[in-house]
């Protein structure tokens, strides 16, 4: 009964909206890359990397803003490498993505031990400052607690605008749909593919930073597949910013439910609930919500 009342409450809805932040940032990140024709499954790794570098740099410098900026920078440097492999060298994008994920997982583990002599987590630190603007607004005050979450909601509109209302978006999408056609009109396709990867690097950095900032530390494995779920949300959302938002809500609802379950001390094993997002993803991918069609040249080196 406790569980039921905790789920049907405004607090629960606010929790869902707040937990959506890393999913939506990660899914938008992947979407910008894929709209430009590059499948970037290393969103998981990129989120991990930025969570780690944000925590480490914030702790070492004592300044979270320095941590934020340098963490974004680290991700952009890795994005250049990712772009060099997938766009310039035309290496298989999935293989490159898996490589980056494994490399980053190993690198963060190694540096964690090297810097903090801990195999599990960094010391605690004070995360990004909270936003007090909406503190006294009912309901909204419950989830609009930080700048990144606000940005995340704005990102829905920003993404629609960039992708569908600007010259940049049109050209980026042409790189993902039919690069030969774009090139025949004088568009530098490879440049646009790099731009897509950069945006992906930036947004996944913000997602990772949010994770570490919220938990006031970095712990090994803290991303816990959120990058992959973000990819699933992007597919379920059919590569459309607004649809992706709703797909992300679905996944964050599961996460919020799982938390409620743990708090209420219910007998339902939490592993069962943890499994649900993946199960739903499979259901969706086998045609539960109709056919999903990626950009035509998505994943095709050019």
């Amino acid at each position, binding site marked *: 009964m406790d569980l039921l009342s905790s789920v049907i409450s405004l607090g629960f809805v606010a929790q869902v909206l707040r937990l959506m932040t890393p999913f939506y940032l990660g899914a938008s990140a992947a979407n910008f890359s894929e709209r430009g024709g590059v499948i970037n499954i290393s969103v998981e790794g990129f989120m991990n990397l930025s969570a780690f570098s944000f925590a480490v740099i914030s702790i070492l410098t004592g300044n979270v803003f320095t941590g934020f900026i340098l963490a974004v920078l680290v991700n952009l440097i890795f994005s250049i490498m990712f772009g060099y492999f997938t766009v310039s060298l035309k290496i298989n994008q999935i293989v490159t993505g898996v490589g980056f994920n494994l490399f980053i997982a190993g690198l963060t583990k190694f540096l964690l031990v090297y810097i903090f002599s801990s195999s599990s987590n960094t010391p605690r630190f004070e995360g990004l400052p909270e936003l007090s603007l909406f503190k006294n607004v009912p309901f909204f005050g419950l989830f609009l607690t930080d700048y990144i979450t606000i940005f995340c909601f704005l990102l829905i509109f920003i993404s629609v*605008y960039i992708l569908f*209302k*600007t*010259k940049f978006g*049109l*050209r980026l*999408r*042409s790189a993902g*749909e*039919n690069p*030969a*056609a*774009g*090139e*025949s*009109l*004088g*568009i530098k396709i490879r440049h646009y593919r790099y731009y897509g990867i950069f945006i992906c690097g930036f947004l996944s950095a913000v997602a990772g930073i949010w994770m570490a900032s919220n938990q006031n530390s970095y712990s090994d494995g803290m991303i816990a597949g959120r990058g992959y779920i973000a990819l699933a949300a992007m597919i379920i959302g059919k590569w459309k910013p607004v649809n992706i938002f709703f797909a992300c809500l679905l996944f964050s609802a599961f996460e919020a439910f799982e938390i409620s379950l743990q708090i209420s001390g219910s007998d339902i094993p939490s592993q069962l609930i943890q499994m649900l997002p993946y199960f739903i993803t499979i259901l969706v991918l086998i045609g539960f919500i109709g056919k999903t*069609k990626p*950009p*035509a040249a998505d994943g095709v080196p050019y």
Partner: protein
Amino acid sequence: MNAIEFENITKKFENFIANDDITFYIRKNDVHCILGENGAGKSTLMNILFGIYKKDSGKLKVFGNEVEFSSPLDAIKNNIGMVHQHFMLIDDFTVLENVILGNEISNKYGLDFKTAEDILNKLIAKYDLGIDLSSTVSSLSIGLQQKVEILKLLYRESEILIFDEPTAVLSPVEVDLFFKIIESFKADGKTIIFITHKLNEVKYISDRVSVLRKGKLVYEADNNKNSALAISELSNAIVGDVSNIIVTENRKINKNDSPAFELNNIFLSVNNVRKLNDLCLNLFMGEIHGICGVEGNGQSELVDIVYGLQKNFTGQYVKNVSGGISIVPDDRKRKGFIKEFNIGENISLKGANFIYLPADTINKISDKIISGNDIRLSDKTAPMGNLSGGNQQKVIFARETISDNNILILVHPTRGVDINATAFIHNEILLQRNEGKAVLLISSDLDELISLSDRLSVMYKGEITRTFNRDEYSGYIRSESEVEPETDPEFLQMLGKLMTGIND
């Protein structure tokens, strides 16, 4: 004044000379046809003109100025536009997005769709293109997609328009509309370069003709009131030696009592759209039954039913002969072969019942096909994607005819195929018929249908509206040249009316 001057243009690919010292000019405001077989060097020359390839030597002048193009962008800046044989369109974009891509109009809020729409709607009205800017390209017919390509050139204010085999994919009605558009461009002072295989079209639309063969310019002629083109001269120039072409004119119609297959009162709807409407059709052994009609009137659905791909129809389909059905599909690149496989591998895909298939066996199969079908290529192990369209089609044709299947379905068997290969395939079709096989021939080339068919049926809105026996139209065939049969316009007009549903 000359729009384009080619002076001693030479382009080599490793040891192969694609363009060998080509010199000719294209007058401003002419419709200039460039002819030649697949591999004669037309596309290479056009790709040099459009900045896709760099010439090895020679000069290129546009409106009298010497130019050096390093990318299509340079050509576009010089008011040259090109409609590629395979359209450069983005299926998922709207017409508007496709057209403005690369030359977007922006205001301070982002893309200015309104201004672009105004400009484009004016152009659409002026040239009577009849396209809706908001529709998605994937929902458009091939004919309309071509108009989107044309609109792209107009939007960029191209003065020199290059069309690479524009009519190969169009139905006869669409070809007429296309020529009307070309004529209005000419009236506007634009220069049109037109690459084609079809001599009748050249005679109709061109002001001047240049013929390439094996990378060299071999023939040039004007086409106007004073000096009309001689088609036979032209076809000789294109193919060089025509003596190796034998068109068998050997009609021994031996209709059996029961047809190879018959379709009775077939109805078919796909996604609630009626595709076949009370269709009745039969095919006898030893006959070629031609089907003519504007594309999209149920031809592909008919083929799917006969071949067994479509089962959700009502009506009766009776096959009276044993054995399988062979098919030469309409879209050879997509359905006909695997482009990464070589000839022998593609042949072995069908009917090979070996468990062990060594490269040796495959090579022997390739050799047999190559020598038996007059396929000319340097490397027999090359993937089929590298072969010319004519050679690809010969291989598919060979694969479908080496089996002893009694029924042969041919869909656009010579689409995009050069004159020599077309003659070869026509000859093979007649040979198959003479062997007693039943041949269903679906084509948009009326001359091909009329010259080959023993019976000719018109398909309109999913039904057969009229069937002619050969003696009803054989009198209309006027063959000016062996390689390019010609039919009396009177009969063509009658067919055209039937195909578009106009009843007098």
